């Protein structure tokens, strides 16, 4: 058997699926842990899509959760509407899948609109503009009463489950990986490496920067939609600047430019976050001291500072695991 030709990543994901399902059915894995796994997978989608923008194309975007917000609200409102109109069979997943994709498409469109004017700016300024746009999106949703305004969009039907989320995450990684390992992906990498030189070998840098933004926004929108249908809620506070920074911490912890790193970091940090949340509660209960949940964020912040000061390439640097990396086409 030619090991190099095997679809390694697919096999790994199928194995993962089988293991989790078995553990869940035999009740070794409970609902809470499965929920954390689902969240981790959603963060895989967020992290890898942000990595496409920041890590592969080298454009520093700080408003990624704004795109997720668009996806969450659009898809949440759509499924709610479709079900209210009783247009389809309530048990069918089709409206859900369609509205998730719609959420992604609208998010992609927003990404395109924002990308075009913003990508003329360099480094610091691009960061600020993307931050600004992310906040504007959040503020807009906060003020649209039709989707709940400051209370958020409630009562979204729970269509997201482990299978759907895993499939979405798998497809996201494969699509982004295939994009990166193609001539188009190399064009994006060249922009990160040296934008001027890229232009001088015939690469239309603006086109590729906008493309990266649009793709990244699409997948963030998908993630947002999946999240909304998991926790049955879309709320402006889920999509603020600090949330965007959390995703940023993931890609830096994993290694900017490494999809493998983003996957590992998404799982690692989601579990760490939950672990901290529980640990703090236990500590506060047992000692009776008023230890608040904010300490969790203090740890996050210190983690980011630590990574930047001492290990700025994160876990994987720019390397990719053989499981994910395609063999060189011969």
């Amino acid at each position, binding site marked *: 058997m030619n090991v190099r030709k095997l679809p390694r990543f697919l096999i790994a994901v199928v194995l993962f699926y089988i293991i989790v399902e078995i553990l869940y059915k035999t009740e070794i894995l409970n609902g809470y842990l499965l929920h954390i796994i689902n969240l981790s997978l959603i963060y895989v989608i967020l992290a890898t899509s942000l990595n496409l923008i920041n890590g592969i194309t080298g454009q520093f975007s700080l408003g990624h959760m704004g795109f997720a917000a668009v996806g969450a609200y659009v898809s949440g409102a759509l499924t709610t509407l479709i079900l209210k109109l009783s247009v389809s069979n309530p048990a069918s997943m089709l409206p859900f899948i369609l509205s998730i994709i719609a959420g992604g498409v609208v998010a992609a469109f927003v990404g395109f609109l924002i990308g075009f004017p913003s990508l003329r700016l360099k480094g610091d300024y691009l960061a600020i503009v993307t931050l600004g746009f992310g906040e504007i999106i959040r503020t807009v949703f906060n003020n649209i009463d039709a989707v709940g305004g400051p209370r958020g969009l409630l009562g979204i039907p729970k269509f997201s489950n482990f299978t759907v989320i895993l499939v979405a995450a798998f497809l996201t990684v494969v699509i982004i990986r295939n994009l990166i390992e193609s001539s*188009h992906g190399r064009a994006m990498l060249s922009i990160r490496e040296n934008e001027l030189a890229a*232009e001088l070998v*015939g690469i239309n840098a603006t086109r590729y920067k906008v493309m990266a933004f649009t793709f990244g926004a699409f997948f963030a929108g998908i993630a947002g939609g999946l999240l909304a249908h998991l926790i049955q809620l879309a709320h402006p506070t889920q999509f603020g600047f600090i949330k965007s920074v959390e995703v940023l911490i993931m890609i830096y912890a994993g290694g900017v430019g490494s999809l493998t790193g983003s996957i590992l970091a998404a799982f690692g940090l989601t579990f760490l976050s939950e672990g901290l949340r529980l640990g703090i509660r236990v500590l506060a209960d047992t000692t009776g001291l008023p230890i608040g949940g904010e300490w969790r964020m203090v740890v996050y912040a210190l983690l980011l500072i630590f990574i930047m000061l001492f290990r700025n390439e994160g876990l994987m640097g720019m390397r990719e695991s053989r499981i994910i990396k395609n063999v060189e*086409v011969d």
Partner: protein
Amino acid sequence: MTPLLKIEHLTHFFGGLRAVYDFNFEIPEGSIYGLIGPNGSGKTTIFNLITGIYVPTEGAINFQGENIKGMKSFRIVHKGIARTFQNLRIFGNLSAIDNIRIARHYTTTSGLFASILRLPSFKSEERAVKREALELLDLMHLSNRAMETAKNLPYGELRRLEIARALATKPKLILLDEPAAGMNPKEVDDLMRLISRIRNEFKVTVFLIEHHMQVIMGICEWIKVIDFGETIAEGLPDKVKNDPRVLEAYLGKRGT
């Protein structure tokens, strides 16, 4: 016969600073021409103007009879002009072969759809690009470095890689910005032979900026000398070498 590159009355100001003034030049197809002058005389600026990095304040630039003034850099590359940089601009974290492959990108036709789905058309195009890239690396004696991360390569090989990358865009005209910088005499010899091959085998016209007299005298067929953005001499290398104005520009005024 129309010259390959025709520059007329090229003038460029950076705010109040005059970097280039009334520069005129015609480069015929198949030639190796040189541009020399003291540091800061505007040579690289002229290259930047030709390749669309700056839009000239005044003047005309025609390539193959077509006006390219104001065109974006990447389009100028598509038209057939490539360049190297004085301070190397290699894609450091990518492999040597990737550096070459990126230069072939604009000629590829596989769309996003075909790429992502790994359609047969995409795969065959990837194979072709890889093969061409390896051939080019081979011609530049860099085959054994194909999979190396570029930033790990020694300086001399990086210079060759940058030239290879420029050639990979299949240009008709290549602008070399101080290609011999930092090279020892043997490397300079190899470079001169390479430049001849570029013209003879690759059929690419060469326009180079150089300080190395060995290179200028050895392979340039015609030279232009500038100082403070203005032309001070032009002609055959031997004639220009002895031109008093050129000597003055480089060595300063003699006498008290």
